[in-house]
């Protein structure tokens, strides 16, 4: 974050504080940083406080460490989730003492801040590799890597260069690997899944660990500093709200690393809201009925429909923009046209599920690969109809346009495209209807949409959940169909909609 933006945020926070936000003395204000895990933890804490009858507010995704820390010092928030390693490195760097938790607490206490015990998990750096490789090579610890000098490693820029990163890790363990590449964190996961690299750095609670079936190697020499999750709170919190404080203490040690991975995965991959994930966790782990139904069925379906429409709109509009020029090119040059149609035809024959999965190594998981796959599916019908619409135009019409003196561009614009418009529109309609149906598979790769309840319904064998996705999807397809019929009466020139000799 730039200094300017940080300054703005801080002054905004200060302004909010002076504007009299302290009018509700019993209210507990929880902050969180702008990444999934922090938001989920913030939500868990907030709901936990509310379950005691106290009032609580979650100020989610406020920013990075500095913003949260300063907001806490300013009394703008009462607590937020933090990691011991971050406190040591970024909040009170160069502190005196032995670096133990107690010495940390002592330093923080001087600023009026308290620190709970560990919530139960660490989110540290670690090395990971594919589970099947780890089993095959019998690798469970980082020191086991010494036996395999030819393994290919890909590390994030930060890990390659920071103090406790790769250079010191390599020295500490005497690791012999030389094929080491710098990769973006997300790309590294995909490269690992695709088999382009054999190991990478990761955070121990990443959602992708389960998704890609990765094994975390034990740090048997204790190289990585500890990043245990804790809560930082203002020292007056226990006094101000004893029941809330008691509930928060009960959270200590209750979230295992596997739990946190699952919670992250539910938010990031299954697109469940942080609120819902948090309340599910409290209900199953702490037996606390926090917030019964975090999202009504109507709102949930509405959200799925919007996600679904976003997938369809993005992929279809990209397909229209690409496919019509392709169709024009294909109609003008017969051999190029044959090649274009052949390629598009081959893409169309790939089963949709397979196409979606092919996209993962290229674009990872989430919305982008789903849009890309849907785009590829939508191209062919539009190209094919554009070609047949253009090549079906009677030669005498084209010759009339030529002899009138129209340039080929003008002929295309004023004669050919209007005449081909019914066919082109029919192609777009076909693509749109296919797209609405196929987009339900997008949920398989984390793109959300109406496939999400279908998928969850199949997993939980819950017919009502399946219908929650299937019925809106079917209605949506019908509506798209109807929409294009209406569009036809606007976009297709009137003269083409008349019956001859009418």
């Amino acid at each position: 974050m730039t200094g300017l933006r940080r300054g703005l945020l801080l002054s905004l926070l200060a302004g909010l504080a002076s504007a009299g936000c302290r009018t509700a003395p019993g209210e507990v204000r929880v902050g969180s940083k702008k990444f999934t895990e922090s938001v989920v933890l913030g939500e868990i804490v907030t709901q936990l406080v509310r379950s005691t009858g106290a009032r609580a507010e979650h100020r989610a995704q406020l920013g990075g460490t500095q913003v949260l820390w300063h907001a806490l010092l300013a009394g703008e928030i009462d607590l937020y989730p933090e990691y011991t390693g971050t406190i040591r490195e970024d909040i009170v760097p160069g502190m005196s003492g032995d670096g133990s938790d107690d010495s940390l607490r002592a330093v923080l206490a001087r600023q009026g801040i308290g620190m709970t015990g560990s919530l139960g998990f660490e989110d540290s750096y670690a090395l990971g590799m594919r589970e099947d490789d780890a089993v095959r090579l019998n690798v469970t610890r980082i020191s086991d890597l010494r036996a395999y000098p030819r393994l290919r490693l890909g590390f994030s820029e930060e890990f390659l260069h920071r103090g406790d990163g790769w250079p010191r890790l390599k020295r500490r363990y005497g690791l012999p690997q030389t094929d080491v590449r710098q990769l973006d964190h997300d790309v590294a996961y995909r490269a690992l899944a695709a088999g382009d690299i054999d190991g990478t750095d990761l955070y121990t609670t990443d959602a992708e660990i389960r998704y890609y079936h990765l094994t975390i190697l034990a740090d048997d020499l204790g190289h990585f500093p500890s990043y245990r999750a804790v809560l930082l709170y203002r020292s007056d919190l226990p006094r101000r709200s004893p029941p809330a404080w008691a509930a928060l203490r009960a959270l200590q040690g209750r979230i295992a690393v596997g739990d946190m991975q699952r919670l992250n995965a539910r938010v990031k991959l299954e697109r469940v809201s942080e609120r819902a994930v948090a309340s599910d966790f409290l209900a199953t782990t702490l037996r606390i009925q926090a917030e019964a139904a975090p999202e009504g069925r109507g709102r949930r379906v509405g959200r799925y429909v919007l996600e679904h429409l976003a997938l369809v709109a993005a992929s279809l509009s990209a397909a229209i923009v690409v496919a019509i020029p392709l169709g024009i090119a294909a109609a003008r040059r017969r051999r190029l046209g044959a090649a274009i149609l052949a390629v598009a035809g081959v893409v169309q024959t790939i089963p949709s599920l397979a196409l979606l999965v092919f996209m993962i190594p290229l674009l990872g998981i989430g919305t982008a690969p789903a849009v890309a796959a849907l785009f590829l599916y939508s191209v062919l019908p539009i190209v094919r109809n554009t070609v047949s619409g253009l090549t079906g135009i009677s030669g005498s019409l084209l010759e009339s346009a030529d002899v009138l003196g129209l340039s080929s561009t003008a002929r295309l614009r004023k004669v050919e495209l209007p005449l081909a418009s019914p066919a082109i529109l029919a192609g777009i309609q076909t693509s749109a209807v296919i797209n609405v149906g196929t987009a339900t598979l997008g949920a398989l790769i984390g793109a959300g949409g109406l496939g999400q309840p279908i998928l969850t319904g199949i997993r939980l064998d819950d017919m009502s959940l399946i219908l929650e996705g299937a019925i809106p999807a079917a209605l949506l397809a019908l509506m798209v169909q109807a929409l294009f019929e209406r569009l036809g009466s606007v976009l297709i020139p009137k003269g083409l909609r008349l019956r001859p000799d009418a």
Partner: protein
Amino acid sequence: MVSSRPSTGRSGDLITYQRQVTLPLDSPIIELRDVVKRYGAVEALKATTLSLGVGVNVLLGPSGSGKSTLLRLLTGLARPSAGEVLLWGQVIAPRTIGPLRRRLGYVIQEGGLFPHLTAGANVTLAARYFGWDARRIETRLEELCALTHFPRDGMARFPAQLSGGQRQRVSLMRALVLGPELLLLDEPLGSLDPMIRAELRADLREIFRVLGQTVVLVTHDLAEAEFFADRVVLLRDGRVVQEGRLLELVERPADPFVTRFISAQSRPGAHG
């Protein structure tokens, strides 16, 4: 039958688009020099040298005789396999075809009207494309409606809403919109029923007379040739059999085919 004087009366406002014909009748506007047109192995037009001048020239012959091919060569839609085609002394080539086409009008067989455009939009498409202003286009449209006896309110209708004869008139107006010096028509009366045909035929002759420009008209119908032609070019199997005034063809046939073709279409009591 060439009127070199500006017309007066009803079509008097046409004079702005009418060029004074100063060339002598035999001065060539169209020239073919050893032109051959092959489609694959088929010679649609065998080596032909021909000159056509001002007046109504009718390309006459049975189907497959090469008359439509000849017309297409004049529009640049077909390019000669050998030899060259000249308009106003200029060889038709990719570089010259654009400017040359602005000086000619073409009524394609079956009209070739754009079904997505109204009659008016069909007629004015080229004028709009070449940047005429709205007032000039409106004036031109009025003139053309008067010339072709087409109801002004019919301009708002689409080709599918017009009769065959009306479509031909619109097609003719479209060819005339820029005021061409050369008008090419491919079987303009081809698919019309007899009543409409007779009416349009008479109107066409009057239009040709008023415009006083060079016309090339393709037909297989001797009666049509007789009705329109200042000069007839009779074709058979891709070859010009004879050209000249129709009377010359009757009186001094160059070939037994000429007599056969003429007598096959002559009815007892037809014009001599």
